[in-house]
């Protein structure tokens, strides 16, 4: 069965790009969230196998969202998405429980690799 993915990003464009790449490679996108709070709600709703999490978002940032999701499900597999130059935040995210990180602009192969490795 295809692994399910929840995409979190505040820009519709990024969600669209990611969704495109992810679906083409045998994963199923079960939901899209536009901020941290939304992501927590959708996580509880869909219980996806994998989550991609942007860092800078309105309402609740990605790092806080990772912490909250980890509280709900300590086995959650979250991949943090960052821009260049967000090194300290990526480290925070990893410490909060993220399994891997992606750096924008995304490279399709990297996205798939991260998802596959995190799913293992």
């Amino acid at each position, binding site marked *: 069965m295809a692994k399910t993915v929840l995409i979190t990003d505040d820009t519709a464009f990024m969600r669209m790009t990611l969704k495109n790449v992810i679906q083409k490679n045998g994963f199923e996108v079960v939901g899209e969230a536009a901020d941290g709070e939304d992501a927590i709600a959708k996580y509880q709703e869909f219980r996806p196998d994998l989550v991609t999490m942007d860092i800078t978002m309105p309402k609740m940032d990605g790092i806080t969202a990772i912490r909250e999701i980890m509280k709900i499900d300590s086995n959650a597999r979250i991949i943090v998405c*960052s821009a*260049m130059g967000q*090194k300290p935040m*990526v*480290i925070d995210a*990893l410490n909060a429980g993220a399994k*891997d*990180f992606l*750096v924008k602009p995304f490279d399709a192969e*990297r996205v798939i*690799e*991260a998802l596959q*490795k995190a799913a*293992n």
Partner: protein
Amino acid sequence: MDTSEFRDVFAAEARDYLQSLNDDLLALETTPDNPKILDEMFRAAHSLKGMSGTMGFEALADFTHQMESVLDLLRTGEIVANKEIINVLFTAIDYLELLLEKTLLGEDVTAVNEIASTLEEIIVNKERFMSTSEQSSDLTSEQTDDKISGLVILDPFDRETVEQGYAQGYDAFEIRIRLRPKTLLKSVRVYTIFQALESMSTIIKCKPSAQDLEEERFDLEFSLVVLTQEKCDTIVSIIENVSEVDNVQALAIDRLSPTMDTEGTAGNVDAKTATLQPISKANANANSELQSEEPPKELPIATPVQNRGVFADKFVRVETDRLDKLINLVGELVISRTQVLEMGKSIEQAESKSTIVQLDRITTDLQYAAMKLRMVPIKQVFDRFSRMVRDLAQATNKEIQLEMKGENTELDRSLVNQIGDPLVHLLRNSIDHGIEQKDVRLAKGKTAQGHIRIEARHEGSHVLVEVSDDGQGVNVEKVRAKAVKRGLISANSTAELTMKDAISLIFEPGFSTSDQVTDVSGRGVGMDAVKASVEMLSGSVEMESSADRGSMVIIKLPLTLAIIKALLVVTHQQTYAIPISSVRENLLVSPEQIKSVNQKKVIVLRNEVLPLLDLAEILGFSRSQVSETLSVIIVESHGEKVGLIVEDLLGQQEIVIKSLSDLLGDIPGIAGATVLGNGQVALILDNSTLIQKEE
């Protein structure tokens, strides 16, 4: 094309390339398959070839072409940099240097010699130098083809940790990891690998250092040493499951020696040490051939490959003559400034006064900026030391690690040029007399590898250069025996000789504690020579030593020689300047305090008998008139104190040293001249030659 005007630039650049070839080769010795270093060396040889060809230096171009070919074979992995090849390359670089200097002097040179034919031989018989991994494929895993470079060197402390780990049932592995090219946020990627390993192992060492990894000062490869109870394969697959990891190799660290095993054995190694030992023994013979090909692991220091290019735009090469001229002009300006300041004292007008103050400030700033231009990092001198220590360590069959610190400490160019020889002498001393032979060191409970450290740093308006070693220290008994033999002290009076006494004896002219004259040091030039040359630079030397713990020599130098503090004195209506660094004190002496020994005048100062000389007389004037009291300045040079009678003291002042013109040449007793604030010219006295002249 007329290339003569580029000659100087060519010479300077070619020497730079030679230096970097030397440095890189030293680094290569530690990491024989480091592709970065090989690329760097290949480029250097290639550039040298091109430059030499353009200048029409055929012999140079031919020889560098051959070096380039050998480096190319190394770079492409067709041959492997074993000890033999590295030694050939060292000789080749030396020969290249000789070739370059001879070419620059316009001497007839030819590239055909035995070194050139050795290089040729390597190129023709390259099969003989093929990678060892292929020759012994039964020992290596399938991953050896993309071999990752960079062996972690375990220091004694790490070794102990590893041994303790074994005792508690842990295995130690060296894990070499290569990241995929174009990996972004490499340091974070390393962090995820650390995180992945955390739960099942302890990382005891990494190379590059954790800080370098954190700051991304590495290319794509790094190594970790971990202690774990897991199987080697488990560790490898955990890391392989981290994103952007290109290649992982794990090597078991042998229990008995710091040599690394291959993965083939590592996989079979059980956590229990009982089974580990026979496996290592079984492999010991098979491995011995491999090991002999590897460089000695603890010996050399890795010199980082310099990142040229990045700074290329930040610097311009300026002829030193032009720089000296600028300094000279600034010196003149400083003198004029002093004159203007003196004139300004009589001016009442507030406006003119503030202008003069401003002139004063700008001139001072300009003076410092100009001085700064002439400052160069002491690295220029330090650079040649790693090679020298390596060669000397080999010659004396000792294992020596050289640590250099503060290479970027800056001091005046003229000082940098002259401090090299004394430092070389100190290093030679440490290698020859300080560091013991391996067996002796081990018997004393020290590491087999000796440690020499050279550090430069600023302290106030001085630069300190320290040379220290962890060798045997000054042997007081030997010093005493030698001192008695040389007649420096009498046999009876030497019952109690302290370390301090011994050290001061070492600085006596003509003293050398070496039992025999060796190649390395002790050619009759002793510590007194070091002291003399440092004092010539207005510096001082101190030494500390403790038996079996090592010695430390501290050289203290002024930042610059162009402007010094001087004591102005008057004799025969003329003003003279005495560098303050050689003045010990000044006193007033009444005629009855002057005694006579062997018809020579002396004074007794705190139980010390000092010869008393009349400055006027030394300088060839008639004797100073004896008044009620005499002004006497005690100066010290080469450890000897002398009293100089002068007519009057004017005080201390900063003076700009100007050398006397070539017409006058070297005048004994005179170091140069300076112009004083009032426009008057004063000669600067050189105490060492002045006093010798009199004796």
